[in-house]
């Protein structure tokens, strides 16, 4: 217990006053003659004892009243939290700021960050002298106590939001770590937050609690600068039909647009898509109008054709004013190139073997109009040995007969350079020894051993998950693909799979059917049953059309395999802020050591030493927008690009409840979020120097005085 005016406790000595009065100035009772006194004498003694007791009670009440008055005036406080020592003892305070983009939410001509800054600057002035202050924000990085309050003030004034903000649980964890370095007894963490759920992920709560547990005692104060009922229109991350596409394809860009608002009215918003042209100017390529109800999200779709070759970048915007502009723009990048060429090699008659695959990858209707994403060349596999493979992006061996070891070697070299080969084994394998040569085993997942037969038609593809890029296209419709309608009657089994082989897909009885094996910079996919059986032969499977005459799964699978083998599926050009962007260089580009990064706002910076092999890594992706990486000129020029968007959780404005916060903090108590300076003062004062008992004591004092009044009145009631 502490006292604001401890000296006033001496006033309790005044308790002697009523005792003295009681002893020497006892108030005289009223006098009456009463002849019948003799009747009362016998009962008088009992009455006197009661009287003395009441006198003592009165005396005790008066003494208590004086003591309570002195006690109340000395303003005692009781500590319920982690307060140590007196109110003016210095503290080690870490001011933690949420600087996620949602802190830019503007209301009352002030962003949440500005409100937090204002509150923090006031709070700095309230800290006791000689306090240690550190300022941490969501940017992360090592924190340190500032040399003085003025430095901390400057740091607060310079705070800005960061698109790649860390969670507050992580920042509080850093604050706890920092406080361990302080030797001051009193440690406090002030968290300036908008109380949004995204800032307090429960997954990271355990680590924060463990770090807080290292501290003996720490006061945690939450300062809520958030908005209870925000109004905001937001865009989700753009989703593209492909990040790398051919000139013949169309780009489909999807995004979600949503509205949160306390009002119930439907709002109409226009969403526009802009593309950057050669001069770097934005050109509107599409506009959609959506009706939005609060709490609802709608999907908007833009279809863009005839994109020129090269890196194409754009932006999607939702029009209209709202509190948070950070989530009103989304950026995207797509790589457009010439159609990929695929060599389909098969035994004679090759056209028949390749019939289904070629029509899946390059249907005649599209091919004749020059709109096919892929250009397929069908080749008799006997000519494979002397065929130049360098012009192909991928080679597919459809039901291959035994190949010359040199051909296998050529294919292995082809793969090692970074391309892809698909092998689809079938009836033409013949003797398995023909596929067990050293050169063949470099590509195959293992030595073929047996033909497995499932003549009843009850064996089919049964993907366990759809994580592999080849199967990713089926992910949204997982569970609805009728794989049992596409039975497999025969397939090859392998013995002793190569160590780096992975099984992509299995049959419904668990037998492996589809394998992947990396080789050098490229990869080999092997399907244990032919993909494109001869139409006139007894089929090993019914994959192309199934028993229901539906070619859609087959076409989707072929396109996914083709994308994967030509490397289109690998292209990742759209990131969230803070992620390291990895860009693939074409195999023909000479490795070099320096590139130029053009960041949003035309900020140019060199990228040196960050490329390795045929990839460039860019870690400076904090700003949302479209980035370009360029180097050289002429034929050897490099012109790559990618986009970075603010992750959606960084702009989610859902508020966290107090119960959820309690779960995040677990066993550690924190002060209820304060929203005003008065509330901060109260909770800080309550924890630091305890809760003042002034009011409570005054209530007790009033009770004692009332009891004294009643008792005294009963004793000395004046005569009417």
């Amino acid at each position, binding site marked *: 217990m502490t006292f604001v005016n401890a000296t006033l406790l001496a006033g309790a000595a005044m308790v002697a006053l009523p005792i003295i009065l009681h002893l020497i100035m006892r*108030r*005289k*009772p*009223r*006098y*009456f*003659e*009463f*002849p*019948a*006194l*003799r*009747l*009362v*004498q*016998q*009962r*008088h003694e*009992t*009455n*006197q004892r*009661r*009287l003395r007791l*009441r006198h003592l009670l009165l005396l005790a009440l008066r003494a208590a009243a004086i003591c309570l008055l002195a006690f109340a005036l000395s303003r005692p406080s009781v500590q319920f939290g982690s307060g140590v020592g007196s109110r003016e003892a210095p503290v080690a305070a870490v001011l933690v700021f949420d600087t996620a983009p949602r802190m830019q939410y503007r209301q009352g001509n002030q962003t949440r960050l500005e409100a937090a800054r204002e509150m923090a600057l006031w709070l700095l002035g309230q800290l006791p002298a000689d306090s240690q202050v550190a300022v941490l924000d969501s940017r992360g990085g090592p924190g340190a106590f500032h040399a003085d309050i003025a430095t901390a003030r400057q740091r607060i004034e310079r705070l800005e939001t960061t698109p790649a903000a860390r969670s507050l649980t992580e920042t509080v964890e850093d604050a706890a770590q920092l406080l361990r370095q302080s030797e001051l007894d009193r440690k406090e963490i002030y968290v300036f937050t908008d109380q949004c759920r995204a800032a307090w992920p429960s997954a990271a709560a355990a680590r924060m609690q463990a770090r807080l547990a290292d501290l003996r005692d720490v006061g945690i104060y939450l300062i809520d600068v958030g908005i209870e009922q925000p109004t905001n229109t937001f865009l989700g991350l753009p989703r593209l039909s492909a990040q790398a596409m051919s000139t013949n394809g169309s780009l489909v860009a999807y995004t979600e647009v949503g509205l949160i608002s306390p009002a119930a009215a439907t709002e109409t918003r226009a969403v526009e898509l802009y593309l950057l042209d050669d001069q770097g100017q934005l050109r509107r390529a599409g506009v959609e109008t959506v009706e939005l109800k609060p709490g609802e999200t709608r999907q908007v779709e833009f279809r863009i054709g005839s994109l020129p070759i090269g890196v194409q970048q754009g932006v999607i915007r939702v029009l209209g004013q709202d509190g948070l502009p950070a989530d009103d723009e989304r950026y995207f990048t797509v790589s457009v190139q010439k159609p990929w060429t695929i060599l389909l090699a098969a035994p004679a008659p090759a056209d028949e073997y390749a019939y289904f695959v070629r029509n899946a990858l390059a249907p005649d209707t599209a091919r004749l109009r020059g709109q096919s994403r892929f250009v397929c060349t069908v080749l008799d596999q006997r000519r494979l040995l002397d065929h130049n493979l360098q012009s192909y992006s991928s080679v597919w061996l459809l039901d291959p007969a035994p190949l010359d070891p040199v051909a296998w070697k050529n294919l292995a070299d082809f793969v090692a350079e970074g391309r892809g080969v698909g092998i689809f084994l079938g009836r033409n394998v013949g003797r398995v020894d023909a596929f067990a040569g050293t050169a063949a085993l470099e590509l195959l997942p293992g030595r073929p051993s047996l033909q497995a037969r499932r003549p009843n038609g009850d064996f089919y593809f049964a993907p366990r998950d759809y994580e592999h890029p080849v199967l990713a296209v089926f992910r949204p419709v997982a569970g609805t693909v009728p794989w049992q309608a596409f039975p497999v009657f025969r397939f090859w089994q392998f013995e002793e799979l190569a160590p780096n082989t992975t099984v992509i897909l299995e049959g419904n009885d668990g037998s492996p059917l589809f394998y992947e094996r990396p080789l050098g910079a490229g990869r080999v996919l092997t399907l244990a049953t032919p993909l494109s059986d001869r139409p006139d032969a007894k089929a090993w499977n019914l994959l192309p059309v199934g028993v229901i005459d539906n070619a859609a799964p087959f076409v989707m699978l072929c396109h996914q395999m083709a994308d994967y083998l030509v490397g289109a599926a690998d292209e990742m050009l759209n990131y969230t802020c803070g992620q390291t962007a990895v860009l693939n260089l074409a195999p023909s580009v000479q490795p070099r050591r320096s590139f130029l990064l053009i960041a949003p706002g035309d900020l140019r910076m060199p990228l040196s030493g960050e490329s390795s092999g045929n990839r460039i890594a860019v870690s400076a992706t904090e700003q949302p927008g479209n980035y370009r990486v360029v180097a050289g000129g002429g034929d050897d020029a490099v012109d790559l690009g990618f986009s970075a968007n603010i992750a959606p959780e960084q702009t989610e404005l859902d508020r966290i409840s107090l119960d959820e916060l309690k779960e995040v903090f677990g066993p550690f108590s924190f002060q209820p979020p304060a929203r005003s300076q008065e509330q901060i003062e109260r909770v800080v004062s309550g924890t630091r120097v305890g809760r003042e008992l002034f009011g409570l004591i005054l209530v007790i004092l009033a009770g004692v005085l009332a009891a004294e009044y009643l008792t005294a009145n*009963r*004793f*000395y*009631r*004046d*005569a009417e």
Partner: protein
Amino acid sequence: MSSVERYLQPSVINQIKRLDLRAQFIVKGFLHGLHASPFHGFSVEFSEHRKYTPGDDPKDIDWLIYAKTDKYYVKKFEAETNITGYLAMDLSRSMAYTYRQELTKFDYAVCLAAALCYLMIHQQDPVGVVAFDTRIRRSLAPKARRSQLAQVLSLLASIRPAGQTDIAQSLNQLAAMLRHASLVMLFSDLLADPEGVLQALYRLRHGGHDVIVFHVIDEAEARFPFDGMVELEDPESRQRLTLDADAFRADYLSAIESFRQRYRRECAQARIDYVPLDTSMRFDRALMEYLQRRSVRS
């Protein structure tokens, strides 16, 4: 209440200074209320002869009857058929007490005694007065003459209560004085040792006297109206007690009730009429008691 009956209120009587008027008003008020009572119209003219018995005054022998019958008969005087009343007034200091500073216990007793005297004289009952403290201080022999009223009232008006009292001793003295069976009407607050007082009353009763005890206490003594801390002093013994009146009231009322109850019980056993009164009560209660007693006697 009629204008006459209101004189039965002590507060009204207190406003009348002359004692004879007080007595007159009280009795008239009382009789006014007795129109339908069984006591109305009883005779005061009755007389008879009886045989002479040794001890009778020879001068009372009716020689005319002796001449006719050769037997001694004494003429029974009218007074003998009536009640000889003695108004025994307590002169103790405590009788001068009044809480309201209006009618003291003694004043109340005097009014009552005067009224009774008035009534008795009008019924030709002889009435006398004795006033006592530790012993009989003043006395007036009973007579039924009209002039007796003035003498009695004069005496009652002249006496003042003061000092200690010894009721038992005084009653014993009175008992020794009375030659004929009489009606002794004691006006006292009985604030003395009850045992001695009761013994003295028994002795009176044993002497063939009828006794009516008018136990007159003050209104404050009956109700204990004090509150808060009070210091009480006995005016006779000068003994003081400080007490919390509120807390003590229940105890006191219990004590005074048991005090009265004892007298009521003991008197009933000795066929003594005990009339508890306080100074706020109407006078007719006492007058009614007298008339009842006289009715029994006659």
